[in-house]
């Protein structure tokens, strides 16, 4: 296996040749625009990924040919809209290899999916003195809903610590599993640090104790193959806009046996079978958890995004992005005064960093002036920042359309930041 070492050509070529990110870029109209007079370098896909033409076309096609409300009416448009919407659900099922579409609930996004579980499952299951175990690297979306549920039911939220490199301290995590632990809620990949969590070990420990596991998959879904049966988790949540789809649509995968025992969450149309003033009977899964007219075009756009990604090949995308991550890590480490935040052995999609003497907010403004879009701030993961004694970092994150040239532009712009601040 010494072939990679023997290869003399720079990684720039290797990436371009194998994956043809240039061809991928052509599928994303927004990447053709300029920002502040420079071609856009978009390194903020972890906040929101851009949409390919295929997604925009699917949404436009739906709106111009098919739109009507779903699950209502016998007219042609309503039937076609229902078929397209439920077709998107089947696409999601296939994409994450769920057993049945009964386990696929459309939500507004990851946040709403976790709130659904925290409130419905939590409302039925959490008792005073119970514990919910999370980690210190969670996104606020996987902290606050549990805080609220714990406060409502007298339960306690417990957070497992991190290792100094930003990996999960797995022995400490396991030690925190107790008799009162009722739920484990963990990220698949940290949005602030890029850390990949050891889900196999976590799920194995959880199953030994009969504790359900919720996985916040927002930062994983676009970057590698996700198979909920192989993961064997009980809940998996993700957002459409992190996987090249539209905003306002997301998915909660939930093991049917758990879902069947959960009380309905929001009430309204579509989630009922019959309604009388005194009481109602509820619809079957998954619609029982989808009150009101859903985001139909969002679901269809999400389906198109998944199809697009399948077309590229998730394994090829994963290899491409891992190579970019390695390349960016190397290039950034070489910059004087730059400190990488989060250097866990297993990472995905994200490089977080600080620059001595320059606040991340100033980095963000100066990079933007060069047409380079990165996220700066606490990344909605304030406990993770606190763990590193920081208020903020700058973060570059990668998607299927990023190239080595993007990393070169990032590095060049960071050198300019250094020049301004001396």
């Amino acid at each position, binding site marked *: 296996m010494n072939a990679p070492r023997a290869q003399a050509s720079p990684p720039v070529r290797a990436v371009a040749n194998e994956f043809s990110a240039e061809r991928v870029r052509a599928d994303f109209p927004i990447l053709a625009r300029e920002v*502040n007079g420079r071609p856009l370098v978009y390194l903020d896909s972890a906040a929101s990924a851009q949409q390919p033409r295929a997604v925009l076309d699917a949404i436009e096609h739906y709106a111009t040919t098919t739109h009507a409300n779903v699950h209502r009416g016998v007219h042609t448009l309503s039937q076609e809209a229902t078929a397209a919407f439920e077709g998107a659900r089947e696409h999601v099922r296939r994409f994450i290899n769920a057993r049945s579409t009964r386990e696929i609930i459309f939500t507004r996004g990851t946040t709403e999916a976790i709130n659904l579980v925290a409130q419905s499952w939590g409302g039925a299951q959490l008792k005073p003195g119970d514990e919910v175990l999370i980690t210190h690297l969670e996104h606020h979306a996987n902290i606050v809903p549990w805080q609220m549920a714990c406060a409502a039911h007298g339960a306690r939220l417990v957070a497992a610590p991190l290792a100094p490199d930003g990996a999960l301290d797995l022995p400490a995590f396991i030690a925190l599993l107790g008799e009162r632990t009722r739920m484990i809620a963990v990220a698949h990949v940290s949005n602030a640090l890029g850390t990949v969590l050891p889900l196999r070990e976590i799920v194995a420990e959880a199953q030994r104790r009969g504790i359900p596991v919720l996985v916040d998959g927002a930062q994983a879904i676009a970057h590698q193959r996700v198979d909920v049966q192989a993961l064997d988790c009980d809940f998996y949540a993700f957002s459409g806009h992190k996987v090249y789809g539209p905003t306002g649509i997301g998915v909660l995968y939930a093991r049917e046996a758990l879902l069947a025992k959960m009380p309905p969450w929001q009430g309204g149309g579509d989630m009922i079978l019959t309604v009388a003033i005194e009481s109602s009977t509820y619809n079957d899964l998954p619609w029982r958890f989808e009150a009101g007219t859903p985001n139909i075009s969002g679901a269809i756009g999400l389906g198109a995004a998944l199809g697009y990604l399948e077309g590229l090949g998730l394994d090829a995308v994963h290899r491409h992005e891992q190579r970019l991550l390695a390349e960016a890590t190397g290039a950034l480490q070489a910059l004087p005064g730059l400190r990488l935040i989060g250097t866990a052995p297993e990472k995905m999609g994200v490089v977080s960093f600080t620059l001595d003497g*320059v*606040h*991340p*907010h*100033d980095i963000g*403004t*100066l990079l933007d*002036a060069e047409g380079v879009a990165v996220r*700066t*701030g*606490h990344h909605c993961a*304030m406990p993770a*920042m606190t763990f590193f004694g920081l*208020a*903020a970092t700058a973060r570059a994150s990668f998607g299927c359309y990023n190239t080595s040239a993007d990393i070169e532009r990032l590095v060049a712009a960071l050198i300019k930041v250094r020049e*301004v*601040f*001396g």
Partner: protein
Amino acid sequence: MDTRDLYRDVILDHNRSPRNFGRLEPADGSALGHNPLCGDSLSITLRVQGERLSELRFNGQGCAISVASASLMSEAVTGKPLDEIAALYHDVHGLLTVDKYTPQRPLGKLMALSGVREFPARVKCASLCWHTLNAALEQRNAAASPVAAAAVSTE
């Protein structure tokens, strides 16, 4: 959009060597300002003699714009009558948010902040210290008794 207009020498200098950095104890008024967008926080303690702000210190962490703005503000308001500070606040707010704003009075070094207006995402960084100063002055008025320091947010 030229970042040289934002990061002028005066701004960079006050960021590197902030004036009046620290804390007054005891203080007549204090407040904690917070910018939830970036997680930055700024605390202000001040003393008042008669109707004049005699001393002000700030500390906390923040970007170059917020640190320099607080530092410039501390120099501009120290020794000034409170009503003049209110008028100054009005002018700085105009400078940060209104196109081609003409200040009612000479702003001196505070004019270095005029570039911020071109960067809407950064206006809150520059105005945080002024909001916090107002809160500290109000807290002083409200609190003849020892209450918790006032807190403000840019949101």
